[in-house]
């Protein structure tokens, strides 16, 4: 079952330079509603447009659920936008 959200969350992530113009962003830990979720499997990431803004969208699994996060490179905010309850 899917749930669409728009919750600001805390994320522990690494930012590794890939080339002169790109940085690889990889989240490792998410804090949501007081609980910590360790990222088990990274799904994929892509950019999506929100008006003129480009946000990074990451999909990953933690425990029995899949999560989708959006990272705003202008405000450095992470937003949890979707949860898929896998079990």
């Amino acid at each position, binding site marked *: 079952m899917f749930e669409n959200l728009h919750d600001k969350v805390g994320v522990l992530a690494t930012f590794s330079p890939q080339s002169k113009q790109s940085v690889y962003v990889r989240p490792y830990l998410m804090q949501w509603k007081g609980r910590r979720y360790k990222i088990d499997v990274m799904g994929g990431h892509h950019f999506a447009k929100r008006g003129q803004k480009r946000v990074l969208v990451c999909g990953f*699994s933690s425990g029995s659920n899949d999560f989708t996060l959006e990272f705003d490179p202008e405000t450095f905010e992470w937003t949890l936008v979707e949860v898929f309850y896998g079990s």
Partner: protein
Amino acid sequence: MALNGIDVPISPEPPEVMHIDLNGAFAMTEQQWRPHLRGRPVGVSNRVKVAGTERLADYSICITSSYEAKRQGIVIGTRQRDARLIDPSFVMVESDPAKYIHVHRKLKGIFQDYSPTAFMKSIDEGVIDFRGMRQLLKGRPLEDIGREIKQRVREEVGDYMTVNVGIGQNLWLAKVAAGLNKPNGLDVISADNLREVYGSLRLTDLPYIKRRNQVRLNMAGIRTPVDFLRAPYWVLFRQVFGSVLGHHWYFKLRGYETETWQDATRTAGRQYVLEHRTADPEQILALLHKASFKVSRKLRMAGLEARGLALGLRYRAASPDESFYSQRWRDRHKWPAPAHRPDELYNRAKWLFEHSPSGEVVTAFDLTAYGLAPIRQEQPALFVDEYTKKSQVQDAIDQLYDRYGELIVASADVAMSKNPMKDKVPFYSTKYFDIVGGA
């Protein structure tokens, strides 16, 4: 007929065209992004829930399904409700064009590393043409390159992503080869195994041979791909296809090239299935107005204007089996002056709509601009005229769209329309991606 009585042999050319397509592209992409969907029956739909509610839209249909779903008979066109009856663990996912465009661009980048002539045929399939490039390959077999591409797709696009690779003497045979061992196949069709491959297939396994063409061929006594290959030239040209298509098929089947890849944009359009079906002309016109905005945006981004506009309407059928008995109406017209602004396109769409049967419940429509040419650069008028004023307003609106998102400013009828018109996945042409640039 020059070729009457002539038996053209199978082309002796080596297979040097590589066709690559993603396995169950959108469903596999969703499985890549959401690891818990892997190994489960998954479908992708343009609408999973009833708009504005959390209720599942039972009648929404799969536009694609994963291999796990396909094995159980959940294929394109299966309704969400039916899929859940077949397998209660079935999951329907809402399509996400931004994700598929990302995968499309990644694939395109990989293919273009091997040849500057590589091109994408659609959102999930591409071709690398190695003809005339043997020297650059330095004796490296194409199967080896195919395996390397598979590996790169797993590393650069996603570890769950697999592709079919087909190698053949022409574009069509390469596509046939890519479909031989799905998923994750790698096959070569050459002059040596061509007959053997045809012998293992049914007519409808061949690309572009669907029910109608099958009936045509059956009527001429052609029941298998081997019969198709053996059929004399004049039978295909005169009896079966009655056109140059017969000529193309005769040579295509033997490994000669008959296709050319058209790169120029020839049409720009928008199709829409109404969420709230209606016979009210005002509501239908509001939707046509919205579609005019979208078509106009596509044209303007490509720097094109259109002289022709076609409108197709689909009506609710009296029969319960709508897919078979639904009524269709279609008309088109070419105007002397080209148009690209939404108000111009809307006026033309309205004119076409006025010629359609009235009082029918419309379930879907499509609006297509054709007869495209680059927007004419008019000499600036000394005094600002009406046309210039409208164009300047449209330029300002385009800037607002770029900054804040599509249709952020629209006419009242479009803004009030109950039917949402979200961006959809384009199945065939991918030129729009190149026009709109990177997300």
